[in-house]
């Protein structure tokens, strides 16, 4: 016993160093690519930094005061919320329907599952560029089909990305297209986690499809559902690719969201300080949202 207890000199040090060496790249990665920009953003948000000027003065909450007063910011905030909430609502309903449809085995189910996953696998930018063409004012296939069906005449066809409300609907549509696969996979996992005997017991107890869906399956899926909503909401709320590529915030800033406004103000408009303040504005909102979702998930935990 005494022999094995004695530590060989130097044996602990290499082990400790190995751990550090294995750990360091990820820590470095996080510090350099997430930590530093975040600290910089905080610094900028409380300063008067601008692109092309070396002047740097702390101005306190001045930036936040001014963006809160700007109508553009308030509109972008409202748009962000509208996009996130409506996209999530549509995604939850559609992915639930898809999960129910894909649950029972049928011929070609594997292939259909693969097709449904595709939008999630494709890079956001590529997918959005595809949608930009689908919704294009001249080459839109949707318009072409509607004209061919005599729903619209060629001269008064809708401009999908050119009219404020249609443009907002288009942005929501693309967000849904992108998030449904992810959400469907989570729902499928959630459904398959429910023991097969429970819906059967409900059927014997006399519950129909809707009662089983809303009083048995849905409550039992609450934890996993809230994870799906949390992830989806954060993806939508922080995403600027879709808006930037599809409409660049237009027409007339009607589809501007907080991330795209931050980019437009801070980089394109060279007001770094205001841009940083706009993007930092998201942080407390998202932290709060995450807190409440996780608490809901924890509370609803069953079994």
């Amino acid at each position, binding site marked *: 016993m005494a022999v094995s207890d004695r530590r060989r000199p130097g044996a602990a040090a290499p082990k400790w160093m190995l751990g550090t060496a294995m750990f360091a790249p990820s820590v470095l990665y996080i510090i350099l690519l997430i930590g530093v920009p975040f600290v910089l953003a905080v610094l900028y948000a409380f300063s008067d930094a601008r692109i092309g000027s070396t002047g740097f003065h702390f101005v306190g909450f001045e930036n936040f005061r001014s963006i809160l007063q700007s109508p553009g910011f308030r509109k972008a905030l409202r748009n962000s919320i509208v996009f996130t909430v409506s996209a999530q609502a549509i995604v939850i309903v559609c992915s639930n329907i898809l999960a129910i449809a894909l649950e029972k085995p049928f011929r070609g189910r594997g292939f259909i599952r693969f097709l449904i996953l595709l939008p999630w696998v494709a890079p956001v930018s590529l997918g959005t560029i595809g949608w930009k063409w689908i919704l294009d004012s001249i080459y839109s296939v949707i318009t072409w089909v509607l004209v061919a069906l005599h729903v619209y005449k060629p001269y008064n066809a809708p401009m999908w990305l050119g009219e404020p409300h249609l443009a907002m609907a288009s942005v929501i549509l693309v967000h849904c297209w992108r998030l449904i696969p992810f959400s469907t996979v989570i729902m499928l996992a959630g459904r398959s986690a429910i*023991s097969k*005997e429970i819906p059967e017991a409900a*059927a014997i107890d006399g519950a*129909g499809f809707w*009662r089983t869906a809303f009083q048995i399956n849905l409550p*039992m899926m609450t934890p996993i559902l809230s994870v799906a909503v949390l992830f989806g909401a954060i993806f939508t709320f922080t995403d600027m690719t879709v808006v930037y590529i599809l409409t660049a915030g237009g027409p007339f800033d009607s589809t501007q969201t907080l991330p795209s406004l931050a980019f437009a103000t801070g980089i394109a408009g060279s007001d770094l300080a205001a841009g940083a303040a706009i993007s930092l504005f998201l942080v407390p909102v998202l932290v709060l949202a995450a807190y409440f979702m996780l608490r809901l998930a924890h509370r609803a935990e*069953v079994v």
Partner: protein
Amino acid sequence: MAIVETRHLTKVFKQGELGAVNDVSLTTHEGEFLVFLGPSGSGKTTLLRMIAGLETPTSGEILIGGSVVNRLSPRERRIAMVFQSYALYPHLTVYKNIAFPLKAQGVPKDQHRKKVEWAAGLLGIGRLLERKPRELSGGERQRVALARAIVREPAVFLLDEPLSNLDAKLRASAREELERFHGSVGTTTIYVTHDQVEAMAMGDRIVVMNFGEVRQIGTPAEVYDEPADTFVATFLGSPPMNLVERDEVIVGFRPEHFFPVSVLAGRAAIPEPMRAADREGPYVPVGLRVGHEEYLGAERIVYGSIEGGPFHGKTVVSRLASTLTLPFDAGGVHAFAVSERHLKFYDRSSGKRTTPRSVAWR
């Protein structure tokens, strides 16, 4: 209350394969406790699920209370089922679990509390109503599942191995409780199990199944004492019936009917009037080469092989009360005997019971 009947019921899961249930026709009696007994894969659960309406039969008919219910959904069959896992709704309290069938079947809300309390009281779980299923022990969960089943007063109870998740001690008391419960409610009950002790103890009649087919239907005494074929003979009883074969016939006898001749000598000492019920003879003497012996407390199981005669070398088992302290030396040959009355004869090719015949043992 109702009678359940199946007519030529068959379920084939994969086309071309042997059915999970093959041509099963049976009828329960009114208020009967009928047990489906069989090894795993014997089709007993599939048969129960078809009666419940969770599985669609490939062919055949199911009748509950005299009318064909093949096309009715589970909710329209007026049945209640207790699952092996109990399948309680984990997000609902015990009260809401028990009230769920009432809610689902549109029972007016003001009657819920009374009915739930009646069912909970019957099973002694009145104090658990506000708990969630995860806060209950296995035995308590099983009672909640039963309460949920009886609350809407179904025509038929279906129970799918409801005791298999309980530990051995709890199982015995739950078994007794279930019997008492059935006695007081009197609803026709179909009970699926692979445990022969449960089946023997609880069943009014037992349906013995194997490979999707009914091998025998009868009271516990009938299936144990007069097994219809070699499967039933060896599935029931522990250790199972001794089967020794010769030519076209298989001879079977229960281990408890196979004992040392010295026991007979002891019986001879019993005064004649008390021996009247013990007219077992004539006896067939059999030499047993003792292999090894298991001492199980209340009984002794002696393993060995027959010595001499046409059945020489066949392995057989004797089950003796441990009040018999006679020692057996391993490897030695001892004089055993079996009553001719307890010999069963089976056809070697079909395994079915055949007429008794005289067999030369020496």
